[in-house]
């Protein structure tokens, strides 16, 4: 591992007066797995774009590939030099087959006019064989799992003769098993001399796989370390520049009158025999792997789907929700797992998104929206939750992940809910923003709101919840008391249920 594949020297990037990257020096060896970690907005994506050639660095930067200095580096040069990026959205064609997704680009790049289906399949098969995987060649990519789609994207990169593969948050929506499979593919590629830059928020994965880790903060590389010298705590410290510690949240909850009670709730092929009680002022953690039925359960509690059998009691009264309007009317709020799709209207302003759930309270005598009330409500929430926005008129899609999540939260808190279901509230947001969200959640329960916190991040549930329920294959299989459970204990339990 002596020879560097790519070297960046004095790379800076300014956008209209804002420094995105400040004199970055970076080096990745051939056959190395190099993780890049940093908070949102730290400059990671700018750095990736420069390496991929889609954004030019400021003058004075030096980019060397395999010892050669390159000038006027464009996307097409990067591709010719064997640099491939797998973006978070994977950039695949859902309507084409696995084989075509892998190999079509090869024909396009070669300037062929005709397609040779036999050859196309062979190219795809060879690519899969190189990393020892098998996928059905004729399946449509839109119909296979996200994890398999990821593998298709990797195979496509292989076909293009990849020497440096950049993966942006590849594990964000994979189950643990799938993550392990992906990591083993990455190790396999490393053994073939391919370099990998791995961008991730999941620090335990970073430490599990990386040879070296570069930490980036405020546009500067804070340092590059062999992963053996790091642990999660140290890494967090390096990323944020602050000493952030997970302080467990201890609260005594009055367990007299449950606000929500669920008896033997079942829904065919989704979940079965779910029973629990939720008390006012309590945070109930539910953890389980992706696909354990936790989101399906949440959707039934919120009235989006109806259970086949069993009973839901709200404040002691049996209830049947015909739709989520009923649930909202009772005082149940739900912040969905995929905030981009379900939680926000991305191209609408921050203000409109916050106000949308409470429009009924904002009307004047004529039944029209009262502008002043609207403005006051919006400003109150922006302040309360410290949402960083240039203006409440900015579209939500321009905000960072952490701030988007705050907008979703404020939207629901504005309805004065009695029960708030948070499904993966900190997915894809960085450590500091995570802490801020946890702080908001803790303040909410102090006001007597009951919260169901669904998350697959074990430290998150253990440090915030009063009780933790484990869901597996649609059933609740265990309950843990965070005050006497260590993260390792729970992790071990999770790894061994099958």
């Amino acid at each position, binding site marked *: 591992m002596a020879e560097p594949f790519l070297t960046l020297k004095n790379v800076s990037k300014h956008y209209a007066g804002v420094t995105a990257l400040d004199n970055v020096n970076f080096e990745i060896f051939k056959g190395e797995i190099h993780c890049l970690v940093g908070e949102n907005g730290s400059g990671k994506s700018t750095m990736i774009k420069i390496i991929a050639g889609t954004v030019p660095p400021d003058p004075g930067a030096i980019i060397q590939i395999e010892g050669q200095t390159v000038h006027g580096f464009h996307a097409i040069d990067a591709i010719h030099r064997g640099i491939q990026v797998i*973006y978070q959205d994977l950039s695949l064609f*859902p309507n084409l087959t696995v084989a075509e997704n892998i190999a*079509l680009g090869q024909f396009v790049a070669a300037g062929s*006019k005709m397609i040779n289906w036999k050859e196309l399949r062979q190219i795809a098969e060879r690519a899969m064989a190189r990393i020892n995987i098998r996928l059905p060649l004729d399946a449509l990519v839109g119909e296979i799992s996200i994890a398999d789609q990821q593998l298709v994207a990797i195979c496509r990169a292989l076909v293009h003769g990849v020497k440096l593969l950049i993966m942006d948050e590849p594990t964000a929506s994979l189950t643990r098993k799938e993550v392990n499979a992906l990591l083993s593919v990455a190790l396999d590629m490393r053994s073939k001399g391919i370099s990998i830059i791995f961008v991730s928020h999941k620090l335990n994965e970073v430490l599990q796989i990386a040879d070296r880790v570069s930490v980036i903060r405020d546009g500067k590389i804070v340092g590059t370390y062999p992963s053996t010298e790091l642990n999660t705590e140290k890494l967090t410290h390096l990323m944020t520049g602050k000493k952030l510690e997970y302080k467990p949240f201890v609260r005594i909850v009055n367990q007299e009158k449950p606000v929500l009670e669920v008896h033997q709730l079942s829904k065919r092929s989704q979940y079965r025999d779910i029973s629990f009680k939720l008390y006012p002022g309590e945070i109930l953690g539910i953890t389980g792997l992706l696909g354990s*039925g936790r989101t399906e359960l949440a959707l039934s509690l919120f009235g989006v789907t109806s259970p086949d059998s069993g009973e839901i009691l709200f404040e002691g009264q049996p209830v049947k929700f015909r739709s989520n309007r009923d649930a909202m009317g009772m005082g149940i709020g739900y912040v969905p797992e995929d905030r981009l799709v379900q939680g926000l209207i991305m191209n609408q302003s921050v203000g409109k998104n916050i106000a949308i759930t409470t429009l009924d309270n904002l009307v004047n005598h004529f039944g029209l929206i009262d502008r002043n009330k609207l403005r006051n409500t919006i400003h109150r929430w922006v302040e309360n939750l410290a949402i960083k926005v240039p203006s409440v008129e900015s579209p939500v899609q321009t905000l960072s992940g952490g701030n988007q999540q705050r907008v979703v939260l404020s939207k629901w808190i504005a309805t004065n809910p009695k029960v708030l279901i948070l499904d993966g509230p900190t997915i894809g947001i960085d450590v500091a923003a995570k802490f801020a969200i946890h702080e908001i959640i803790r303040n909410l329960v102090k006001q007597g709101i009951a919260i169901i916190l669904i998350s697959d991040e074990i430290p998150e549930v253990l440090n915030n919840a009063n009780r933790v329920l484990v869901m597996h294959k*649609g*059933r609740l299989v265990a309950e843990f008391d965070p005050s006497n459970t260590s993260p390792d204990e729970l992790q071990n339990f999770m790894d061994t249920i099958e």
Partner: protein
Amino acid sequence: MKKIFSYHETYVLIAVVILSIVITLVNPDFLTLENLFGLLRSYALMGTFAVGVLFVLISGGIDISFTAIATITGYTVAVLLLKAGDKLNIVLIFLIAGLIGVALGMINAAIIYFFRIPSIITTIATMNIYYGILTVLSQGKWLYGFPQWFSDFAEINVFTLTNRGGTPYGFSLITLIWFAAMLLGWFILRYTIIGRSVYAMGGNMASAHRAGFNLMGLHLFVYSSMGFMAGIASVIQALLVQTVAPNALVGKELDVIAAVVLGGASLSGGTGSMFGTFLGVSLIAILGNGLTLMHVPSFWYKVFIGLTILLSVGASTYRRRLFSRQRVIIEEEVR
């Protein structure tokens, strides 16, 4: 076997077969070669339009202006036929109409690509412009009285048979032109890089851009193919009715788009096949013909077409939803 039922085309084919059986039971005249050959001749117009529409829909766009394009190409060749009919031949006529269609299609593509205006808006606008200009220049005048060779060509059969009454009938050369257009389209979509790229672009435009596809070239290709097919179709129309009227085609564009959608193409792009498109056109043709043969008042035709479209598209959407729901968390025990 299971795979067959995952194709939209299978269901349209079943519909075509069932409908044919029902119509034949009511009126056995339906299932005669004479009737079928007649249908294939008169629906060559819609069928040729449909080939172009399929390209546009797969690419993720839509074109409303093709009937206006066909009106211009048809009128132009009609004027040429009247002015210099004896110096021309059928190949030249098709070529001229096709090339004018390509040029007008390229204008559509350029506007859509360079100004990033949604294709539906662009082509509604250009439809009005194309059609408007022609109406002004032609003053709405009908053209007829084409040279003898032009009307003779329309009657050529690939082979001719005689019915029991002694009247000859046959498989028209016009139908063959439609079939050739479909064959060409099928080949391009299936076996050329540009064809597969059209699918890719319709599936995910952003990915296509990142993967280095030439999006401008693809836009030009797709909309000029539509224009070309519109040009060919306009000559077919002139051959069929031996008259060119400025207002004969505009207004029929939605019927054609409906036929293609019926055949499995999606308005959101990325899907559709030539075989499906043929079935979609066939279904519309058989429905119209069948209602006549069963003596159903022709006013009902539109109602049935509408219902068929709703049923077909509804059914395929429902199937897709069933598929996406198949995420099973608990494997149900066998009891």
